[in-house]
């Protein structure tokens, strides 16, 4: 009973914060850029940064401190207060509490799934009035696409964690398999043949598998493969669920067949998390090809792992595809125009090419500005940076966690052979569409 109270208390505590929040009406400050003044007044803004620990010595904290220091030096009238929050659910809760209490928060890292919710609830300030013509030309269209809700852009795009294939070159040499390249990517059939060749048992009994990827719901990293035949989850406007189309279904069935028909994936494929597949690839070296995000590269580089980054295979669509999560900075809509302007200036700096030059190691994934080439410091990173151009991304839609669970379960059912791709997608389609219809009312 005591634990029940604790749980209820947790839920209720969040409610107290809500209850203590200001009245329901959203801040109605206009988002138009104010006219520049000759002597800018001093302004202090609060920056919620994920993974930041005041006084910490980790790379993320040090880089954030440096970026803030340089920005303040170049903009002496702006003072930045940094509030560190973790990347976990605890961080999400702190962020939500700050936003709902309308406490001091001006700039924060926003995740793609939460962006539409914040935008629709009037929390955010639109970035368009603060974009110059140069900015508009510099950003890749995909950067704006994922931050656009109801025709307005609500966040400054920083980077995309473009997913690619990481290969263990030692295993490739051991099996005599020639890796693909950006100039000569594999077709799906070539990819399957290679995966089969790379699945073998060593003399010491170690089983090596051709391919794997994080596939537990919430950290799925085989997304690019879902698009290779021209299918996608939602229609480009985000209003229709379309993955039960022949193109969507065929790609999903191909992914499942890697495990069910070709048997070139580890037995836990379909349910394994990111840490699990990374251990298989890096520590145990029992996987030849890992489809993953660029965040894993520093770890592999540090250990001199025999790594080559190659593009995902090409399917029926006939061209390379990548996908990934976006790093976005959002600005909270406040009535103080000086604060609002300073916040946008700061967010613009954090997502620009200058910060990548000012702070070595700032760019953990390819930038979404054409001018930002700070990420391409070696051949492997260059492949990832080039892949950004081939990105296919879904429109931002705030669906429920329950729908996410059920959709994730549908993907798992396909890979585990419990349902065909067609059957699973046809079953989830009505539920998905019902939520989309409700959101678009």
């Amino acid at each position, binding site marked *: 009973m005591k634990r029940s109270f604790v749980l209820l208390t947790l839920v*209720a505590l969040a409610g107290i914060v809500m209850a203590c929040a200001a009245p329901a009406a959203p801040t109605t400050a206009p988002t138009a850029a104010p006219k520049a003044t000759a002597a800018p007044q001093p302004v202090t803004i609060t920056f919620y940064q994920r993974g930041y620990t005041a006084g910490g010595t980790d790379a993320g904290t040090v880089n954030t401190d440096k970026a803030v220091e340089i920005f303040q030096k170049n903009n002496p009238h702006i003072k930045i207060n940094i509030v560190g929050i973790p990347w976990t659910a605890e961080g999400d809760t702190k962020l939500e509490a700050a936003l709902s209490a309308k406490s001091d928060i001006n700039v924060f890292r926003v995740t793609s799934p939460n962006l539409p919710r914040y935008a629709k609830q009037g929390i955010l300030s639109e970035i368009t009035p603060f974009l110059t013509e140069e900015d508009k030309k510099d950003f890749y269209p995909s950067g704006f696409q994922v931050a656009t809700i109801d025709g307005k852009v609500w966040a400054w795009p920083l980077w995309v964690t473009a997913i690619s294939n990481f290969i263990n070159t030692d295993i490739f040499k051991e099996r005599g398999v020639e890796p693909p390249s950006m100039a000569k990517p594999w077709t799906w059939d070539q990819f399957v043949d290679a995966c089969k060749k790379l699945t073998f048992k060593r003399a010491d009994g170690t089983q090596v598998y051709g391919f794997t990827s994080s596939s537990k719901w919430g950290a799925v990293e085989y997304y690019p493969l879902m698009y290779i035949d021209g299918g996608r989850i939602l229609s480009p406007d985000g209003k229709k669920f379309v993955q039960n189309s022949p193109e969507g279904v065929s790609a999903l069935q191909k992914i499942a067949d890697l495990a069910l028909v070709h048997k070139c994936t580890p037995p836990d494929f*379909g349910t394994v998390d990111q840490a699990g597949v990374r251990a298989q690839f890096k520590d145990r070296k029992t996987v030849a090809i890992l489809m993953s995000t660029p965040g894993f590269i520093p770890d592999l580089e540090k250990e001199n792992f025999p790594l080559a980054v190659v593009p995902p295979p090409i399917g029926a669509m006939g061209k390379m595809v990548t996908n990934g999560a976006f790093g976005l900075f959002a600005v909270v809509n406040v009535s103080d125009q000086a604060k609002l302007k300073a916040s946008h200036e700061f967010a613009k700096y954090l997502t620009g090419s200058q910060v990548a030059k000012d702070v070595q190691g700032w760019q953990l994934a390819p930038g979404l500005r054409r001018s930002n080439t700070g990420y391409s410091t070696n051949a492997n990173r260059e492949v990832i940076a080039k892949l950004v151009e081939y990105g296919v991304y879904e429109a931002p839609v705030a669906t429920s966690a329950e729908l996410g669970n059920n959709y994730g379960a549908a993907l798992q059912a396909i890979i585990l052979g419990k349902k065909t791709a067609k059957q699973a997608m046809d079953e989830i389609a009505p539920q998905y569409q019902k939520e989309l219809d409700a959101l678009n009312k």
Partner: protein
Amino acid sequence: MNTHSVRRGLHLIINFWNKHKWSYFFIAPSMILFFIFIAYPVAQAFLLAFQKVDLRGSTWVGLKNFQDLANSQLFWESLRHTFVYAVCVVIAWIISSLVVAALIQPLSNKIQSLYRGAFYLPNVTSIVIIALVWIWIFEPDYGFFNFLLTLIGLPKVLWLQNPDIALWSIVLSTILIIPGSGVVLYSAAMGAIPREYYEASDVEGANALQKLIHITFPLLKPTTLYLTVIYTIAGFQIFERVYIMTGGGPINSTMTIVQLIFQTAFSDFNYGRASAQALILFAIIAAFSFVQFKFLSTDVEY
């Protein structure tokens, strides 16, 4: 009410206050904390269950959160999984702790204490660590269980990856750790049963099974009731193990009610719906506890 009555009432209150004020003073800190951190949040959770909450504030929606739950297949699935887990775990824990307590009963006091300590040890280990160890035991390629299976020529089992058996694997990982609290309590309760009852039954010619059924079990009923209630509550509140070992998957096959509450509250930030789920869990646990008290409670004192 006349002046005399008012005076008398006031006099009683003042007397009561003079007599007990220090008692209230001393319990005040814990009562204040109780109201701030338990009573008020629980009342708020009750109110939130009837509201839609977002960053702009909250609006009353009546029973909508409960209606949505009634139409949610995932909610019913999570209830079913939780019920299966709780029933299996309560039965297994009661039986295993009773058997272990019975086995150590004939031993000397020192040896009994040693065993009680040994069985209680896992209780002080973090459930997170226990769950992480179980992940390794269930690992498909390198796990201990599959190693044992291959030794006897059986195929490997996908303990946590196969949706048909993942929930049973979690049940197995729970019941294989015999609860120390049950062993300690049963052991103490058995030790407290007067020897005269057994001596009398010996005179009547009762065998060991008859003694167990007619003397030991009935006299252990209060302990069994207590353990059944606390194990049922623990069973319905299964969370950490599922969160760490499977996250509710695969294919939602291990999704339990508390895992769902956590996701609804802290992934979806749908506090209204999460509160409704928590209220339903509260009602279920209260109902089970009531039924258990009704059927297992006893007036036997010894």
